[in-house]
Each structure stands twice: as structure tokens, then as C-alpha cells.
């Protein structure tokens, strides 16, 4: 029996766990430019990929890193890069290219304090909106936000499965605290790991952008006899540029709707103590762990609070939050930025939320969020 046939417990950082999850689901190509606090992802991949027949390349910068993984994916390999704030900004243009060319890839962003080079070794959560709106044009994004090394492992797997299912880049939106803290990670036996692979065309040649009924086109790999043309320009289903309003409508409509119409399949929310709650605390990543403690402290004081944790941050659970607002619940939003999820929560609930923000550098202390819960309890709305 090989070690891959039995479950194993390892004591891993979030960064290392994300790398292991990627390898477990079949990622065999990584191109990246190390940057704190994501460097341990690259470090782990550099050591582990050659052991499993994969390829690791350290590129000259982040522009080439993301370009390389788009190429790796077209060559048929599950591909990933990892970066942090400044590198994520540099990747934005080719992130859009990945969306336009429907290229399944995973981009790990271990958020640190920004803007610019900001706080290299310290926490930030400032890319909540950038993950969704950071590249130009209209699009729908998929982004996941783990709160523990176990989830870094599990969500890396899910990020690849969503990327392959929807033929689109998926963002694993981590943060410095979760990336650097160590906890036990249960690595299941290989046979128990669900690995989704992109649809392949049944005929050769097959037009690389001709979608099925679910709006997702099968993806012909390069070198298998298909006539493949890949462009960032608006294109027809053969991949030939066709820059007309009609084609723009057709293509963009499909790219947006292949995610929008299936968002219930993507969204994953943890609701803890929400049913009887008067106060709903919305949080994600490391902040959710502070919020969970704050909710426990509030309950001990007799305040009915609950945690609404965004395990997926995009697509955003607007309808569910609106439903909770209509039940008369009040909202607290905690995040390490100046109010990004806050905008989405207030738009969804159509009322003001109490905001507990931090500029970055350290996670919330539980009492800071508890203060927000008490403020919400006494607020008028």
C-alpha cells in the first residue's frame, strides 16, 4: 500500500497546504515569482512538483508567470501561480486574458497590507474588490477565501475543480495570517479526492469556443489536431477575431452567464447561529476566526449573534443576505480593509451595516468585533 492510499495528517502552514491541495487535484505546472507572504507556496511547489512528474518554473516577473500558466493550461496541464498584492496587480491584465480565452487556471493571492508594497510580512484583505473588478471589462469572477490550512488544502482542490468545470481562472483569495499559521491538515487518500477535468471535444477538429448547452465550451488541447486560435479580441467560436457589437453581446453574454446562471453551484457560505440571530456578522478569511470568537462572547452576554462566513467571496450571496435583512436582522461587517465587502452587504441588505475595519498589519481582536455587535444591537435600523 503506498502512502497515497491512506489518509495522512500533516502539520502545515496555509501556504504549504494550498500547494499540497493543488498537487492532490492534479496540478502539474506552476509558474511564479516568489513574493512574501506567498513564497512558501512556490517553495513547496518547487520541491514537490518534480516528485510527481510536474514542472515548476520561476519566471522573471508576475506578468510572465500568469502568461505561462495560461499557456500551460492550453497545453493540457492543470496550472497555477501564487502571488501577493503587488504581483496580483501586475497579473490583472492577463487574468482578463484568461477570462476572455476561457482558460482554466488557479491564481493564489496571499493578501498582505497595501496599497503598493505596503506591509510585505503583515496582513491585509484589500483585494476583495480587485478579485472581482481588478481587470478591465465586464466579467463574473470566482474567488474562494479559506480560514485555515485545512481549507487552503480543500479550497485549492475546489478552485481547480471550478476552473475546469467553468473553463475560467479561479482566485484562491488567501491572506497573510491564514497563509502563515500552522495547523493539522488531513490529506485524504488519493482515491477520495474528487478531481474534475475540463470537457474535451468528441470530434477533431472542434472549434475551441463552441459552447454546449451549459454555456461552457469543451476545450481542445493544443497538439491534438484541432485548429486553435486564441485571442483576447472579441471572437467567434473558432477563435477568430470578430469585433462587432453583435459578437460582443453574444460572447460576453455567454462568459458572464456561464457563471451567473450557475452561481448556486459555486457559492459556499457557512451560517453559524444565524437562524435565531438578531445580529449577523459577515466575515471571511482570518477575520472570520476573530468573528467566530466575538459571536461566542456575544452569546455569552445574551446577545443573539451569528456568523455569516463567505467561504466563496465571489459570486456574492446577495439574495441570501437580502432574505436575512427582510427578517429584520442587523448586520456587522468585519474585514481588514476600509470597507469592500461592506459595499456588497449594504447593497444586498438595503440598509446600513456596522463596519469594523482595519487598515492592515494585524487581525481583529475578538473584542473589536464584539464592540461592533453591541453597536449594531443599539442601532436604529
Amino acid at each position, binding site marked *: 500500500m503506498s502512502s497515497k492510499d491512506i489518509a495522512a495528517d500533516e502539520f502545515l502552514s496555509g501556504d504549504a497546504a494550498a500547494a499540497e491541495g493543488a498537487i492532490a487535484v492534479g496540478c502539474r505546472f506552476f509558474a511564479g515569482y516568489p513574493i512574501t507572504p506567498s513564497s512558501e507556496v512556490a517553495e513547496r511547489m518547487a520541491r514537490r512538483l518534480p516528485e510527481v512528474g510536474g514542472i515548476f518554473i520561476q519566471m522573471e516577473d508576475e506578468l510572465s508567470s500568469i502568461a505561462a500558466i495560461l499557456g500551460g493550461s492550453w497545453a493540457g496541464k492543470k496550472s497555477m501561480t501564487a502571488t501577493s498584492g503587488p504581483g496580483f496587480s501586475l497579473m490583472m491584465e492577463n487574468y482578463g486574458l484568461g477570462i476572455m480565452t476561457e482558460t482554466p487556471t488557479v491564481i493564489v493571492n496571499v493578501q498582505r497590507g497595501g496599497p503598493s508594497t505596503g506591509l510585505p510580512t503583515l496582513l491585509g484583505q484589500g483585494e476583495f474588490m480587485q478579485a472581482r473588478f481588478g481587470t478591465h471589462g465586464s466579467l463574473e469572477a470566482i474567488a474562494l477565501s479559506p480560514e485555515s490550512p485545512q481549507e487552503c488544502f480543500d479550497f485549492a482542490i475546489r478552485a481547480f475543480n471550478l476552473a475546469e468545470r467553468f473553463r475560467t481562472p479561479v482566485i484562491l483569495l488567501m491572506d497573510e495570517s491564514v497563509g502563515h499559521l500552522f495547523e493539522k491538515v488531513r490529506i485524504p487518500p488519493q482515491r477520495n479526492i474528487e478531481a474534475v477535468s475540463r470537457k474535451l471535444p468528441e470530434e477533431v477538429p472542434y472549434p475551441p469556443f463552441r459552447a454546449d448547452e451549459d454555456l461552457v465550451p469543451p476545450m481542445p488541447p493544443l497538439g491534438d489536431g484541432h485548429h486553435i486560435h486564441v485571442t483576447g479580441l472579441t471572437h467567434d467560436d473558432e477563435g477568430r477575431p470578430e469585433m462587432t457589437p453583435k459578437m460582443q453581446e453574444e460572447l460576453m453574454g455567454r462568459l458572464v452567464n456561464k457563471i451567473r446562471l450557475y452561481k448556486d453551484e459555486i457559492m459556499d457560505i457557512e451560517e453559524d447561529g444565524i437562524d435565531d440571530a438578531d445580529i449577523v456578522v459577515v466575515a471571511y478569511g482570518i477575520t472570520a476566526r476573530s468573528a467566530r470568537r466575538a459571536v461566542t462572547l456575544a452569546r455569552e452576554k445574551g446577545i443573539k449573534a451569528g456568523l455569516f462566513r463567505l467561504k466563496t467571496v465571489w459570486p456574492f450571496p446577495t439574495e441570501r443576505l437580502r432574505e436575512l435583512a427582510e427578517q429584520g436582522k442587523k448586520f456587522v461587517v468585519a474585514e481588514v480593509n476600509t470597507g469592500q465587502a461592506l459595499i456588497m452587504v449594504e447593497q444586498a441588505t438595503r440598509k446600513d451595516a456596522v463596519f469594523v475595519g482595519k487598515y492592515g498589519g494585524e487581525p481583529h*481582536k*475578538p473584542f473589536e468585533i464584539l464592540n461592533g455587535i453591541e453597536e449594531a444591537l443599539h442601532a436604529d435600523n
Partner: protein
Amino acid sequence: MSRTEIKIGGFGGQGVILAGLVLARALSLYEGKQAVFTQEYGAEARGGSSASGVVIDDERVDYPYPLNPDIMVLMSQGAMKTYLPLMKDGGILIIEKDLVRLDKIPESVGEFHSIPATKLAEEVLHNKIVTNIIMVGFIAKVTGVVSKENIKRSVLEMVPAKVRELNDRAFETGYNYDEGAE
């Protein structure tokens, strides 16, 4: 066991990060606890402040950082100034005897221990690099937070093969240190 917090503070190069990591790893993998390990460090590789945190619980650990450590291990004067005020009343305080000057043990401290870990590393083991593992052995002995067998296993698995024997002796030196003898 309810939530227990351990803080180990010192300066870069003393190995306080590895000390916390081997402890948390032993508790997590070999004692069936929920354990989280976190670290704080400056931008410098050596000489800056450095600290690690371990939070242990039977249940899932929510907030992963020590707030009021039950066990406080201080290996530099700077760490003493920063972290001593955070200590929980009645907690266990452990200091590096030659590197932390404490005029008076605060009344809130429940139990106090000290060990000249750096001097022992230099004089007994002739290698300052194992100061942290001497401290780990001492922590295991005086706190009983982890079994000797499990923490030793964790240490020996985490260090390179060529220095395993050295670390084994360092651990035993800390574990068997007699505070009353000096």
C-alpha cells in the same frame, strides 16, 4: 483541556519559531489536540524581535493568537517588556536566566522557572544553535503540557538527520536541568 495559550518571545536567531512549531506539532499530531502555531518576526534575519504563539484546545481553535498566555517563555529583555504584561494571572513564567533581568517576580505569576539555556548550549553542548531545544525540553518538564515522548519525537523529526543526536542531547539537557542545583 480548555483553551491554553503559550507565548515564546526572544530575538531572531534564538530559534523561538522552531521551539513553538515543534511544541504545537507534537500536540496536534501526537496528542490529539487542536493546536495552532503562529509567528511574529521583524524584517531582519537575526537580532530583531521574534516570537511564536501556540494555542491549544480540545475543540476547534477559533481565534488563533494568544491573548493572555497561560505559559509565558521569555528569552530576551525586549520580549520581557513586550509580553510579560499580557500574561494570565496565575500562569507559568519561564525565563532565560542570563538574558532576562527581572527585578521582582510579579505577584500575579503562579509559577516561576528559569534556566540558563544559552550557557548550557555553549558549555555543555558546545553549540549555541540548540539553545531553543534545551528550552523546549525544559518547558516540557516544568509545564507538563506535552508528554516527553511526543515532544521528543516532534523535535527529532523536525531537525536534519546530521544534527539529530545533538538535538537529542540538548533536549535531555533541558529536560533534566535542576533549577535548585545552582
